[in-house]
């Protein structure tokens, strides 16, 4: 039934190596006198980069997801967290992460590498508390930046400065905490890398408008993850440019992710990491998830173009702006991050519905699958409002229950049954061979 040719991604091996190197570098940082810090994937990680080239971090969400992917270890971690009296409905990434810390086991082998400090920002209720607890448990210092300044379309100078001022304080705190002298040129370099990697990720996502799509969402998960690990690093920015070029080649040559693509879907929120087979199941019907606001907009930065379409956000460098000072770098970094699509719905679900419908239109989708993710209060906030908005726009939509990081909350049989129903509503039948 194949209609299109397909082939594995050439840069797949590199993607894997880069990810493992990230976790290894963090683990080994102390061997060479380097610094280890921990915080969330949303943290302004370009800022600690100004402490030196030997500063390594571990971001909690992808680490929690890596644990979730390893079901036996995840169960061990979740149980260790619950045994300490934490509720089962807390963020499941956080519970996995804490479990790894309590058990003193690193998901990549050895002991949980104790960070030198925690550095985080505060977007959802779990964010600040997550690392407050890590800091208390490990007896290490903690700094948190509050970013609750409202949606980007209401951003003004006062709101921006509220964040920028905290960034300046963060730098003072980092110097005091580590005893190192802060290097503005390293900050500027990291900010430029971040602008580049996050804008290029949006370009990558745009290439999936092509039919057949060059990338399926399951593969995207293994690629966007680098942005959640180290969006400020040169390695990630360079890797994304390489990936973009390969995808352009795939689009030009009609190399498909799914050779029998006949239906294009998008998902929402983090997937149930222990059950990515959901995506493989879709393929049996010729259905492909080409991405989501989550995969496009958690790392990617976007803007509305003059013709009304959604496209990669133009970086200050592309506009000819040169970053020369600490304050300028911090202002750009704050403004850039506050525009992130994936947190706009923290203020209003309507903002998310509009972006989702834009994706449906621009990426020519046939339907939407919403993961009612019980493991993340943040990203599933308002999701039923989104469902309503999408359904009212006449777009077929289904929901399924799950949990990104706690496989005990995923009912595989029921979810697959629900997908069967959805596929039938889209007039798709399972294809044989």
């Amino acid at each position, binding site marked *: 039934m194949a209609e299109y040719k397909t082939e594995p991604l050439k840069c797949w091996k590199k993607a894997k190596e880069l990810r493992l190197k990230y976790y290894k570098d963090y683990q080994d940082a102390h061997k060479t006198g380097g610094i280890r810090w921990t915080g969330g994937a949303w943290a302004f990680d370009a800022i600690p980069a100004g402490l030196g080239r030997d500063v390594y971090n571990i971001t909690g969400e992808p680490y929690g997801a890596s644990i979730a992917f390893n079901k036996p270890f995840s169960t061990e971690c979740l149980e260790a967290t619950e045994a300490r009296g934490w509720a089962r409905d807390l963020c499941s990434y956080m519970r996995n992460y804490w479990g790894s810390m309590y058990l003193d086991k690193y998901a990549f082998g050895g002991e949980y590498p104790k960070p030198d400090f925690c550095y985080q920002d505060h977007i959802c209720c779990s964010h600040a508390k997550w690392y407050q607890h890590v800091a208390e448990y490990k007896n290490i210092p903690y700094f948190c930046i509050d970013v609750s300044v409202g949606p980007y379309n209401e951003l003004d100078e006062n709101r921006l400065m509220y964040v920028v001022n905290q960034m300046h304080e963060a730098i003072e705190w980092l110097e005091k905490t580590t005893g190192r002298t802060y290097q503005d040129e390293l900050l500027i370099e990291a900010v430029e890398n971040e602008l580049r990697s996050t804008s290029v990720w949006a370009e990558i996502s745009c290439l999936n408008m092509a039919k057949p799509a060059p990338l399926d969402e399951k593969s995207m998960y293994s690629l966007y993850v680098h942005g959640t690990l180290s969006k400020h690093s040169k390695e990630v920015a360079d890797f994304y440019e390489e990936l973009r070029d390969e995808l352009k080649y795939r689009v030009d040559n009609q190399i498909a992710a799914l050779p029998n693509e006949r239906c294009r879907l998008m998902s929402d929120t983090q997937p149930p990491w222990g059950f990515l087979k959901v995506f493989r199941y879709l393929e049996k019907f010729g259905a492909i998830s080409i991405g989501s606001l989550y995969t496009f907009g958690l790392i990617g930065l976007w803007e509305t173009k003059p013709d009304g379409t959604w496209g990669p956000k133009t970086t200050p460098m592309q506009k000819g702006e040169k970053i020369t000072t600490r304050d300028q770098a911090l202002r750009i970094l704050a403004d850039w991050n506050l525009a992130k699509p994936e947190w706009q719905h923290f203020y209003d679900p309507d903002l998310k519905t509009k972006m989702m419908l834009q994706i449906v239109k621009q990426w020519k989708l046939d339907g939407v699958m919403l993961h*009612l993710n019980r493991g993340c209060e943040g990203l599933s906030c308002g999701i*039923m409002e989104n*469902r*309503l908005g999408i*359904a009212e726009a006449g777009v*077929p*939509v*289904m*929901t399924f*229950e799950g949990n990104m990081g706690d496989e005990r909350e995923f*009912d595989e049989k*029921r979810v697959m*049954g*629900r997908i*069967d*129903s959805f596929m*039938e*509503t889209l007039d798709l039948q399972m294809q044989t061979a």
Partner: protein
Amino acid sequence: MITVGIDMGAKNIKVVVLKDREVLARSQEMAGFEPLEAAERAYKRAVEKAGLTEEQVEAVYATGAGRKSAPHTNDSVTEVSAAAKGIVFSNPSVRTVIDIGAEEGRAVKCTEQGKVEDFAINEKCAAGAGSFTEAMARALDVPLAEFGQLSLQSSKSIPMNAQCAVFAESEVVSLVHAKTPKEDISRAVHDAIASRIISMIRRVGINNDVALVGGVSYNPGFVDSLGRGLETAVIVPDNAEYVGALGAAIVAAERN
């Protein structure tokens, strides 16, 4: 064309034999611990009742929770599609069908061709399904068959706050201890289930006419609560528990 639909429900297995859009026979068996054997018996009996031999059957489609393992089948169709097809065949004016079986409740919005436009299924909780009624009847020590009738004798609304079947049971026990009349408790239970189902139906929207199918449609107490909650008349078709099997037989005819 002669087709058969088998609905492999969690509790009961239903079979419908269809010939050129006319139902020739129906049969039903408890699924029990050996659902395949039960399905076999129900299938054979239905074919026999229709005055046919098995060789005359041209296509068999299954639906229901155990549809993938049903005997004799050429293919299967989900409960959602089967309910939509079946209801529009038996009651052409229906656009919203609510299907409540032992373990699952579904709301399906359909077109006049019986195609699914949208659907919602109760999430992981028995409090929106038939087995919840059974558990509550047991807690009240009332036979299931009388439980619904009892509810109709009450005109009092007692809110039940529990969100899950287990906690609802302890709430029922507290009401018993408070000497609340059984008919009021029965109505409170049905109102509580109906309110959960209604919030699910609202996800797909309430498009008249509304029909209730599945085993729970035989419970007059629930039908009453649902109608009051929805503020619209709820149609219960004849042979409501066979609508899924009928839908499967129709799809079998359409696809073959």
